[in-house]
């Protein structure tokens, strides 16, 4: 069961992050103060990418709740870092971000780390 829950967490997180990053960058730089954060809320409610992103995040969150209930926090959180590997690849392929040797090496190290944590 823990692997099913983990897969749901990872897949939903990846989808949510890609949608969010795509839309927020399309919208341009946002004000970062407390008022700026409040101004984000109506913007979220109007945008279909962000709504979909929030739905994915909710799925990910409820699966994570079930995972963290039965598994140690020191497993659940590092294991969910698997989403980072998938996202680095997809950030390059879909968002056209440049990954390069250093980012690639970093991602590979994180992958090795997750494999150890998951054993």
């Amino acid at each position, binding site marked *: *069961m823990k692997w099913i*829950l983990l897969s749901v967490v990872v897949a939903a997180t990846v989808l949510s*992050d*890609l949608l*969010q*990053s*795509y839309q*927020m*960058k399309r*919208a*341009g*730089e*946002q*004000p*970062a103060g407390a008022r*700026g*954060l409040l101004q*984000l809320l109506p913007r*979220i409610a109007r945008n279909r990418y962000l709504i979909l992103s929030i739905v994915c995040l909710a799925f990910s*969150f*409820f699966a*994570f*709740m*079930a995972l*963290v*209930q039965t598994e*140690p*926090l*020191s*497993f*659940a*959180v*590092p294991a969910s*870092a698997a989403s*980072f590997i998938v*996202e*680095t690849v997809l*950030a*390059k392929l879909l*968002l*056209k*971000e440049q*990954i*390069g040797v*250093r*980012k690639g*090496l*970093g*991602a*590979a*190290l*994180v*992958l*090795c*780390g*997750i494999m*150890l*944590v*998951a*054993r």
Partner: protein
Amino acid sequence: MTEIEVQQVIAPRPAFRSKGFRAYILLSAFLALRGFGNLSLAWGTKHLSGALSMNVLSYGRALLDPFVALAIAMLILALLVRMALLSLADLSFVLPMTAVGYVISTLLGKVFLHEQVSPERWLGVALIFAGVAIVGSTSEKTTKELDLIK
């Protein structure tokens, strides 16, 4: 062209610095909220009766737990901070930097939930951290315009 874009064209360095500084402030706030939010969530759900994965209705009861409710408030705030951060910096910068949170959560699990963390798992967490440190030294923003979906 907005004022910020003009600044980047004329004097790219100072604009990059102040943007970087704001990014790190938001990053710190995010890490604190995420770490303690997860801890509160773990504490709250572990004290519930019945497995959440077995009964969808049990989520309703779980949300009434004070620790779970506190966790959700902190994690929602963390999400908003992170969205502001994503508007300043690339996903491939934000993701690895926020991965420091995986180390923080392992520590919080050990200290507050008295979890056994094997040397193998610590090595895994250290590798995640090393990967994060390497990626963190790359530039924050590499894309100018997106043409993913028109």
